């Protein structure tokens, strides 16, 4: 069973967090085309979240083409989702980059300084990693 983590302090809507995490798992290869996701009831109970939140997350993912809802059978990862995940990775990264840009702007940091720090951190993380599957570990999975 996939592990989902919900953070109700982040201000990010719960369904959005679930969507991001499904995409993260697809991007990381933990979910493959044709894999079945937990049923709405099961996931709602496991995470102790409102069932309509799970419905919303699944419906939005279906709308985006990442999931296919088969009537009476459940939700399945589509083949298209795997292709899409690289674009989503870019989007998720951009969100984080934007956040960094805003905060760096508030601290009046120079572009050179920001770029240098990013480079150093990427290298440090890559150095720590034993298996370089993903170049950078995405923290789309909500922060603690």
């Amino acid at each position: 069973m996939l592990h989902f983590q919900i953070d109700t302090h982040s201000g990010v809507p719960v369904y959005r967090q679930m969507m991001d995490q499904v995409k993260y798992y697809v991007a990381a290869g933990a979910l493959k085309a044709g894999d079945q996701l937990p049923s709405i009831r099961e996931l709602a109970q496991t995470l102790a979240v409102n069932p309509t939140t799970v419905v919303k997350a699944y419906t939005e993912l279906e709308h985006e083409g990442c999931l296919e809802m088969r009537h009476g059978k459940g939700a399945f990862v589509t083949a298209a989702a795997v292709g899409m995940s690289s674009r989503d990775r870019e989007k998720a990264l951009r969100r984080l980059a934007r956040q960094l840009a805003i905060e760096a702007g508030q601290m009046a940091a120079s572009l050179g300084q920001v770029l240098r720090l990013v480079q150093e951190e990427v290298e440090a993380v890559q150095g720590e990693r034993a298996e370089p599957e993903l170049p950078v570990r995405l923290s789309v999975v909500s922060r603690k």
Partner: protein
Amino acid sequence: MQTAIQTENLDKAFTGGVVAVAGLDLEVPRGAIYGLIGRNGAGKTTTLRLLMGLLRPDRGTARILGADFWEAPRETRQRVAYVSQRQQLPGWMTLTELCRYVGHFYEGWDQAHARELAERWELAWDRPVAQLSAGQQRQAAVLAALAGRPEVLLLDEPAAGLDPIARRSLLTSLVESATHGTGCTILFSTHLINDLERVADHVGIMDRGRLTMAGRLEDLLQATQRVQVVFDDPAPPPEFVIPGAVRTQVSGPVMTAIVRLANEAQLEPIRAWRGVRVNVFPLSLEEAFIELYRPRDEGEAVAEAAVEQERAEALARSGATESAASRATPSLN
């Protein structure tokens, strides 16, 4: 949409003139998990007690499943369960005896579910309830309510005094009853807003006996955001006002406000301002609640009065400001 719980124009004052509930209009759709929040003394408990027919309203109506519980027949009562804030369980009874006793009141009593919950919550079957910890007594009361498989469940701070693990388990069980069979409508009061944000689909915020905000959780979250405006100049121009701002703070070139956001278009005038960057951040329900309801300290009150005055003056000169805004070209946004 069918309504499970409804109050109309509900009033209740206690002796000594303490007004607990004043003109309350509450509507809980069938199948909803509805969380009621508000500061202590906002009237949450009184509302639940009025609904259950434990108090008589001074004015207005309170109905569950269409029935006034002051006079509802047993057939209707057994479709509803209620766990009060200070549950008085008969202390000498064991959980076995308690279930046998309460089970008589509910046609749909589900003993297997009672056993399942007792196991999950590690509650002893054969010890007198009075010997259980405060948290476990609370769980025993919730167990007795859930095992009745009610159509409507009213809970007054069900998670108060529970440790984090027991709390999560309680939430799971609530979600489970909401999805069991034809589904159960749940109305609960709580101070644990983060828990509420997880399980609820509807929220009502009570303040001084009435609902000040109510609706779908998602809409409520959408309607309150933190807006930050960063100016290229060292300080915002004095006439600058963020539309819909409830609280505004200025620190150097950065103006931050909690904004009631009706729609995105509301921010267009300030996005069009020259030399500003506008950032919108979502707020968690807890942050939104605290920002909207915490008492203002003196400095803030003064600052807000100043902002209000600026706004009034800006409005008076609105011709000038509007043309300034329309002249400006959208910058970084």
